[in-house]
């Protein structure tokens, strides 16, 4: 868990922090409090962010916390899985709409979608079923691109 408080102004450090937290796929528990499943990597990433917050004139702390009930823990996992599910759905939709575009645009889209797939995968701690659907959509786009190349 990362607790943080940043001055309202300047807004640039706030925006940067927000972007980095989003990339990590954190669960926002409250204002200035985010959580990630604990492992060496997530802990390190939150520690560096805490460092940045302090450097920007704010206050921050990294905590190892455990919910007191299983239900609360499950709720957190469900909300993280739901956030990733939405991203996977968007990816699948992007793949489907790219499949109908011009071959050159399709290749560019495929590259973009693969990058996005990896990015979502890195912050996916509780893979939802949508992951498989997105993988299938990505494979279809790959096939469509290869077929176009073969012609």
């Amino acid at each position, binding site marked *: 868990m990362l607790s943080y408080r940043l001055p309202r102004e300047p807004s640039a450090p706030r925006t940067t922090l927000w972007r*980095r937290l989003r990339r990590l796929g954190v669960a926002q528990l409250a204002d200035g409090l985010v959580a990630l499943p604990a492992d060496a*990597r997530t802990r*390190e990433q939150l520690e*560096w962010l805490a*460092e*940045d917050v302090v*450097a920007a004139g704010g206050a921050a702390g990294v905590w190892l916390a455990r919910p007191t009930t299983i239900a609360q823990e499950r709720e957190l996992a469900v909300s993280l899985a739901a956030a990733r599910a939405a991203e996977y759905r968007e990816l699948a939709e992007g793949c489907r709409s790219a499949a109908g575009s011009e071959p050159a645009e399709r290749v560019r889209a495929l590259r973009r979608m693969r990058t996005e797939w*990896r990015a979502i995968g890195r912050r996916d701690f509780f893979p939802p079923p949508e992951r498989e659907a997105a993988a299938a959509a990505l494979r279809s786009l790959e096939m469509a691109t290869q077929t176009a190349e073969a012609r």
Partner: protein
Amino acid sequence: MRWATRAGIHIDRAACAWLIRRFVDEHAEFVFVADPREVPPDATPFDMRGVALGHVGGDCSFETILRSYELTDPVLWRIAEIVHVADLDDDRFDAPEAPGLDVLLRGLSMTGTDEHTLAVSGPMFDALYEYHRRRTLLGRDPA
């Protein structure tokens, strides 16, 4: 000289250790600690929270060491881009090598000790350096 960093090293710390031994201190000895308080008094800490040679203003520790020791070799700065993207995963640079290197280092941390990771990753960074040195000289990808 002795250098200290957090145990369970990954891409940034492995790359820093290689950088230190090759370009800063050829007799460098490394100590791996679980907690910042365990850093021996005679050791220089790196890639840890609250030390000078850590992440600074969006830079990873490898970049911070390059700046601190005024290493301007463009090949090292190219490797810094790869390490940065592998470590911070923020697309600041175009570094297609990064995801592969990240996976290899992650795997090394699963199969051996930190000493083993350094022993194996050293020649990997040497190879990366040579490849990018030739690439810089040629102005294109070497054969």
